[in-house]
């Protein structure tokens, strides 16, 4: 067994760079003592920092170092930990970083990812000129609160606990037991954080009366608990994810592929539009028509249009089928238009008005159409669908189109239904297919 590591700090680029009296110095030394106590493998340990004076710290350790953008250290730490669960991940950030990156604090606590956060909380931005932060005490003088801070103090531990943090501690760099507390935090199998209050001798101390003992007094005045604030462990996210989601033994089932089994009567790129309502399974019916066409040796594309509130309003699908590769995927000249509901009519009214005489329009017979040059075929789609299944109106209407136009074979449609729908649904769809094609027997074409 290799000799115990007696320090995780390195002098490779010189001594710690902080101002005389800066709290970052004792904080890092306390972290070093905690690591010496725990003896993690430096190659399995990473110190993650972001911007601020404390962000200079990672490079003074013999562990891996990751120095990222202001306030975002928690996000990198989560990525590192999720990708390499065996890593000990320690994040050092300032009170400034907790402000700009507040959402990451909330969400790492909520998810409970096993990283340890040390906040070097010195009440102001030491790197950019002593501006106030989310933790500046009320009345505190900073370069941006010259008459005293009026903004409330963020309770960092309380905020994290409200979001679900299982382990949180508040202390100061003057605490004798800080190394033990940091070690305790690191050993937690979940998110843990220490809000460590300390002095900024460059900016905060010269402007404010602040003695060592005042730190704990300020905590008291702000109802912020000193010491262990929470210790309520709960399951860690990464471990749960691996247990619940990761399953490399059952590979994803191979996608079902389509081979040409039927012939077709399509000689050029053909555009089909079906317009209906949310809940009428318009998109799925359109997809099946496209797949039927693929079974018939054709290329196909499909685009859908529906409101973001998906369970209300229109649902319009555009299908293009072609004996050749389809390049232009918009339908400027519609060849077949299928209209099954009032919502669909409302959405496509102006389009229907512009349909050319070469277009055939299959329409639910109760709908009142605007003027159009298209050949109109009125069919009792709603009444027929009611007899089969309300949700099968799309397939029923497209079956009428296929039967009437003879662009492809109805058997290809049946093939797609059987291949891509669950048996119970397919059984209904096949009945809809039959009912829809039967409507064409004695169709009544009305041109207006």
């Amino acid at each position, binding site marked *: 067994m290799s000799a115990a590591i007696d320090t995780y700090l390195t002098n490779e680029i010189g001594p710690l760079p902080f101002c005389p009296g800066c709290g970052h110095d004792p904080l890092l030394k306390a972290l070093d003592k905690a690591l010496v106590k725990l003896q993690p493998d430096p190659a399995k340990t990473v110190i993650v920092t972001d911007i601020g004076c404390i962000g200079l710290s*990672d*490079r003074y350790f013999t562990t891996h170092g990751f*120095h*990222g953008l202001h306030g975002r250290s928690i996000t990198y730490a989560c*990525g*590192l930990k999720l*990708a390499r669960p065996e890593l000990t991940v320690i994040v050092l950030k300032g009170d400034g970083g907790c402000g700009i990156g507040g959402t990451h604090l909330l969400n790492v606590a909520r998810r409970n990812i096993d990283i340890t956060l040390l906040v070097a909380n010195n009440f102001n931005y030491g790197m950019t000129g002593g501006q106030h932060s989310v933790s500046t005490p009320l009345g505190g003088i900073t370069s941006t609160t010259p008459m005293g801070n009026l903004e409330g103090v963020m309770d960092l531990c309380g905020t994290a606990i409200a979001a679900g943090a299982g382990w949180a501690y508040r202390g100061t760099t003057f605490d004798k037991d800080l190394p033990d507390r940091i070690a305790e935090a690191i050993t937690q199998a979940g998110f843990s954080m220490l809000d460590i209050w300390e002095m900024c001798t460059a900016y905060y101390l010269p402007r404010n009366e602040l003695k060592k003992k005042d730190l704990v007094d300020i905590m008291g005045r702000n109802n912020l608990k000193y010491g262990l604030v929470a210790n309520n462990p709960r399951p860690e996210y990464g471990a749960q994810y691996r247990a619940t989601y990761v399953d490399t033994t059952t590979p994803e089932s191979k996608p079902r592929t389509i081979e040409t089994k039927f012939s077709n009567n399509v000689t050029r790129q053909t555009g089909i539009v079906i317009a209906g309502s949310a809940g009428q399974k318009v998109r799925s019916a359109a997809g099946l028509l496209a797949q039927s066409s*693929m079974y018939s040796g054709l*290329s196909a594309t499909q685009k859908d249009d529906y409101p973001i509130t998906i369970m209300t309003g229109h649902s319009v699908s555009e299908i293009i089928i072609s004996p050749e590769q389809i390049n232009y995927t918009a339908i400027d000249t519609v060849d077949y238009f299928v209209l099954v509901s009032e919502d669909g009519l409302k959405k496509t009214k102006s389009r229907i008005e512009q349909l050319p005489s070469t277009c055939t329009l299959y329409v639910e017979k109760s709908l009142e159409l605007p003027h159009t040059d298209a050949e109109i075929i009125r069919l009792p789609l709603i009444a027929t669908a009611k007899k089969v299944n309300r949700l099968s109106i799309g397939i029923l209407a497209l079956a009428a189109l296929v039967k009437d136009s003879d662009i492809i074979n109805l058997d290809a449609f049946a093939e797609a239904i059987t291949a891509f729908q669950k048996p119970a649904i397919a059984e209904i769809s096949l009945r809809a297919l039959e009912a829809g094609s039967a409507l064409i027997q004695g169709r009544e074409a009305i041109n207006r």
Partner: protein
Amino acid sequence: MGLEFIEGNEAIARGALKANCDFFAGYPITPSSSILHHMLNKLPRVGGVAIQGEDEIASIGMCIGAAMAGAKALTATSGPGISLYSENIGLAIIGETPLVIVNVQRQGPATGAATKGAEGDILFTRWCTSGGQPMIVLSPATVSEAYELTYRAFNLAEQYRVPVFLLTNKEVCVTRESVDLERVELPQLVDRTRVAIGRPCLPYRFKELHEAPEFAAIGGDQITRFTTSSHDEAGYLTSSPEVIQRMIDHYAAKIESAEEDIALVKQDIEADAETLMISYGITSRSVAVAVKKMREQGYKVSSLTVQSLYPVPTTTLRKALVGIKRVIVPEMNMGQYIQEIQRLIPAGVKVVGVNKMDTTLISPDEIIERGILS
């Protein structure tokens, strides 16, 4: 072998898996959300991790962390999300992080017509972060190209240790097409070069300016460092103007010296044609129809489809411009990539843009009327 009927977003997810992607983080946004869904379903089955971040900043942050731990990471969003990725994209550049970023463009600015297509982010994607470094940007025109170029994007990210963009469009990504992905020809998989085991690691050491440094994973045996700050080869902060300039030259050289290796341009050249169409993405498909129509009418016209938008495939474009009198650049924006073309155009050649961003595709007839016959 056989046809499937899938949308571009699924092809992107499958291209990523084919490239051994094992980490995904992303935030929902139309029209890229289904990439998130596909990755959340697929990655756990190969032992990978997919997670929905609390926002775009967290999503790309997690990807950068995972990538530096050795993962092959993907993230996907739409234009507004790229705004939030912006600063971290700079981090991936300076930290030399292999990462693939998908931008499924939608009509903008801001929320715009959120469910509709456009290609307004061409220059934005190219210049999306501070510092002005070169970027690799690939743009697919079809569902099968979405698959192929996602796979290729991973190779480029690994080879040059850079973030690579797949810049696409709602029109490719949420349109279903009949495709046979198994018939798509893919190059060999590329993995980042790693520091030899047992050798100490200087995380940003390179011999030639254009060479990507050897990779040591955070959490691997060699202690390594990653940093957002200007650094020397050891990854330590530096203020030396010489070292900083050398690093800046290095970021640029990695990509600029590889222009011809990265170049992906489909060429449909007709001898003696004096008209050249230059297009990319979904619009190149309208161009293909327009070119066919014009040729049927006896016009001579050539066409280039640029799949690697950046670095601009200057060498290929210059060659194709020889003898050309008129260049037509149709775009679903108000004229962006045309600016890259104009820089290359010899005096006397007319460059015509066909532009709109009203959410609809530019039709072959519009290209003919406003581009060729105007």
